[in-house]
């Protein structure tokens, strides 16, 4: 099992994830309503977790998987908090 052998698919995966991250940021900036931005943010954090997991493969260091776990957790909590806020307050756009 060689390092460079697995680096290439990981590099491609990282590139695709970065493009997805960029697209999600565009939606974050553009989204006409608050829930749009919340969804974009949720996607950004999940993608960040995915990037961390992919990097765990690329760097052959499993500790990055813990980063992914924490990011997934935070993403969920953040989205739920936003959802409660939106429902209680309404939103002004």
């Amino acid at each position, binding site marked *: *099992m060689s390092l460079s*052998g*697995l680096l290439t*698919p*990981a590099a*491609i*995966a*990282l590139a*695709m*994830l970065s*493009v*997805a*991250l*960029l*697209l*999600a940021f*565009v*939606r974050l900036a553009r989204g006409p*309503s608050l*829930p*749009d931005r*919340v*969804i*974009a943010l*949720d*996607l950004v954090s*999940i*993608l960040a*977790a*995915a990037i961390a*997991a*992919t990097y*765990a*493969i690329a760097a052959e260091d*499993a500790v990055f*998987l*813990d980063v*992914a*776990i924490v990011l*997934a*957790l935070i*993403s*969920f909590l953040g*989205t*739920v908090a*936003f*959802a*409660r806020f*939106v*429902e209680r307050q*309404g*939103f002004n756009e």
Partner: protein
Amino acid sequence: MNEILSSALLMIGATFALLAGVGVLRMPDLFMRMQASTKASTLGIGCIVGAVAIHFSELAITTRALATMLFVFLTAPVAAHMIARAAYFVGVPLWEGTIIDELRGQYDRRTHRLARPDDPYAVLPMTVDLNRLAGHVVIVGYGRVGRRIGTALMANAISIVVVDDNREIVEKLRANDVSAVFGNASEPSVLIQAHLHQARILVIAVPDTVDVRRMVEMARTVNPNIETVVRTHRDFGLTALENDISGKVFLGEHELAVAMTRYVLERYASNAINGSN
């Protein structure tokens, strides 16, 4: 072998994540964006984390990877549902191409709960003969006018489905083996229950106190080709209403006047023949 498998999973996961990003950008509506982003990204991160587990092939790492996958699979749908519900409730606009909004009017504004009771009178029972639900006439309102129309149509062997917002009337009709749906006919879900999309004619026999125009609009979204026969008692806006629908508008007072005039004219004619005037 491990390498190939984990590379493949990695590629699949990254593809789905990319699709999630594309979807969240390109979809025209908040809810469609949410569908794309949450579903695809959950699968994407699941596959990538699975690739990590296979790549390292150690028990500790595999356990953590499985825990991550389980956690994401359990929590991402919950989060998506919560934000979707909040967004719908707050009134985020749906895509213009939306034909039917099934949830409209179903939310209790105060308690924020979906107020859809399991009401047997709101849905047609499964035992209704399907032949009666095609090319039929939907009658909205079974009061003084609707009742006469309904009885006459049934006497002519035309199958009808009645929509009324009075439960007792619906109960009585069902007891007499007439298909009836309980609900407000300006809700598309009620019209769908009455199988409006397969009906031939819609008869609106409620007086103008109910919002007839809204009913007509809803009926048209459910079935654009339906012919509508409308009862009204208002002189105002007749031509607008007639242009809106394909069918006929009946002004109650006008029809009464016509019928009474005909009778009076006949009486005059017969009096003239009898020589007294």
